[in-house]
């Protein structure tokens, strides 16, 4: 075997992993379907896109770095309130609103990451939970700023790029949310396939080994936590801008728990897991929307138990196993 052959092979193999698979292209083309098949459901479609983006941000820390966070909605809420307040006090331009929301969530994410990176296991879960609850209480207490239980009023989103107005049918809203989702997805995809992404997987696979190969795990964790916070903030801002409301449940525990469910349902650590999980969850919730909240939580509970017992790697994991099974026959 010629030298160039044997050294080219590993590079080729690794770069093959970054190529777009047909299923991915189909997936993204399918996101355009709502315009043609479900024109009355475009506002639901925007909600799904927003939830998918939120779940994607959680996947970066949970699926790739192994950080179990029960308080990720804190960043979603910060983004939502930032964009909402910005609009309420006179600046309703959507794109710059997103950037400012990302920045606000990122700053808080960066600050808390210094604490987060030092802990593992139960202490880490508790800290994320604690931060989330703390922020939710704070938002409640600062009712004069956040609108408290009534939510933030007076948000008005300006036209996108000066031309597209957000109408009641949600056409512009969906295009907007979908575009933002796609752009940030590309960003996340690139990150995952970078050396940094490999480090994150190393941290998830074997945290203890990382210092032994000279890896500054804490610095890595701080970086990804901040990035995930920024993206969650963008998702929250999208919600504020497209629905023109922000309420306390955007940063409550239920939302943090919900996004974990969505991600796990789809399959963490697979980049598309959050997207798939969010889609399934939001559609199911919409279908059962007539149902009283308690019963909804009953079925979610059953679902969680079932997923953990039967489908530990989520829907995508189950599909991957099926695919592997078939390819062996």
């Amino acid at each position, binding site marked *: 075997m010629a030298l160039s052959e044997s050294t080219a092979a590993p590079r080729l193999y690794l770069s093959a992993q970054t190529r777009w698979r047909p299923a991915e292209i189909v997936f993204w083309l399918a996101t355009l379907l709502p315009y043609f098949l479900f024109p009355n459901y475009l506002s639901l479609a925007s909600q799904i896109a927003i939830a998918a983006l939120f779940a994607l941000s959680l996947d970066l820390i949970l699926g790739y770095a192994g950080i179990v966070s029960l308080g990720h909605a804190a960043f979603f809420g910060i983004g939502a309130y930032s964009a909402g307040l910005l609009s309420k006090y006179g600046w309703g331009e959507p794109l710059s609103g997103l950037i400012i929301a990302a920045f606000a969530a990122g700053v808080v994410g960066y600050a808390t990451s210094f604490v987060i990176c030092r802990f593992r296991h139960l202490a880490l879960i508790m800290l994320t939970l604690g931060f989330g609850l703390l922020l939710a209480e704070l938002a409640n207490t600062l009712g004069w700023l956040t609108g408290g239980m009534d939510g933030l009023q007076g948000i008005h989103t300006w036209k996108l790029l000066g031309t597209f107005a957000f109408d009641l049918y949600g056409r512009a809203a969906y295009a907007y949310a979908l575009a933002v989702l796609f752009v940030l997805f590309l960003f996340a995809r690139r990150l995952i396939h970078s050396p940094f992404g490999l480090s994150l997987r190393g941290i998830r696979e074997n945290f203890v080994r990382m210092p032994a190969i000279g890896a500054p795990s804490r610095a890595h964790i701080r970086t990804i936590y901040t990035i995930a916070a920024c993206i969650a903030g963008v998702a929250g801002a999208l919600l504020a801008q497209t629905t023109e409301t922000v309420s306390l449940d955007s940063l409550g525990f239920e939302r943090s728990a919900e996004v974990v469910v969505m991600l796990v349902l789809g399959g963490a650590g697979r980049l598309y897991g959050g997207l798939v999980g969010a889609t399934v969850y939001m559609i199911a919730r919409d279908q059962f929307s007539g149902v009283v909240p308690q019963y909804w939580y009953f079925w979610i509970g059953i679902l969680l*138990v079932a997923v953990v017992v039967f489908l530990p790697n989520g829907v995508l994991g189950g599909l991957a196993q099926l695919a592997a099974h078939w390819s062996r026959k």
Partner: protein
Amino acid sequence: MLPPIFGVLFDGLAYGMLLFLLSVGQSVTLGMMNFINLAHCSFAMLGGYLTVALMSRYGWPFFATLPCAFIVAAVVSVAFERTLFRRLYRAAELDQVLLTIGIVFISVAVAAYVFGTDQQPLQLPPYLRSSLTFMGIRFAVYRLILVGLALLITLALVVGLEFTRFGARVRAAVDNERMARGLGIDVDRTFAITFALGSGLAGLGGALAIEIVGLDPSFAFTYLVYVLIVVSVGGLGSISGSFAAAIVLGISDVAGKYYIPQLGAFLIYLVMINLLMWRPLGLLGKR
């Protein structure tokens, strides 16, 4: 005449004792098998609702319902442990968190379905609703009994842990599970019994909590947070740690709400975060 702070301290102590009863089981089982059971307060809620049902539908006296709450919660927890939890002892933390959160969701939905979402009224006999006045401070009889009962139980636990063979096995398993197995200790059985005891105590705590903090389906969530705070601050596997943490948190919470009401609700989170940062393994943690 004592200044009112003593009243606040006493109320804080009573609340802390309640938190201790709710948390001690969680602390020991977490310390032993590292199994994160977020459904712990569902068992507490079960005890509470059982007490309400027995008293209102069958006219049982309050004190008769307490052992029932303990036993039923213990038995039901064993059923869950045998069927579901057992599979996840070696699983990833996330899986344990998700499974047990799922059970919490289910329990909350069932409680709402059967009992409705309102606060459960509890008809206690008049002597339990009265209070004694001592040196100018009012001590509610109920809280006095709660503190007394909790202290008795704590004593029983400590004595049991230090002086019985079972207690020795528990201590060994918490200290070093692998070594304990190697010594021939049936850790799984020890764990199952400890788990049952802990859940039973939670059920008892749930029953006792009704008069102090009320009972509605959100109990399983709200108090889960407090229990987790007590456990992570007090240290896994440590009874004395849970005791200390519960008292600190109970008093902080009551005093906070009394003296600085705007800050009150999240003082407890601030305290937890700071304590965890100072001592991530808890005040007296073994792991």
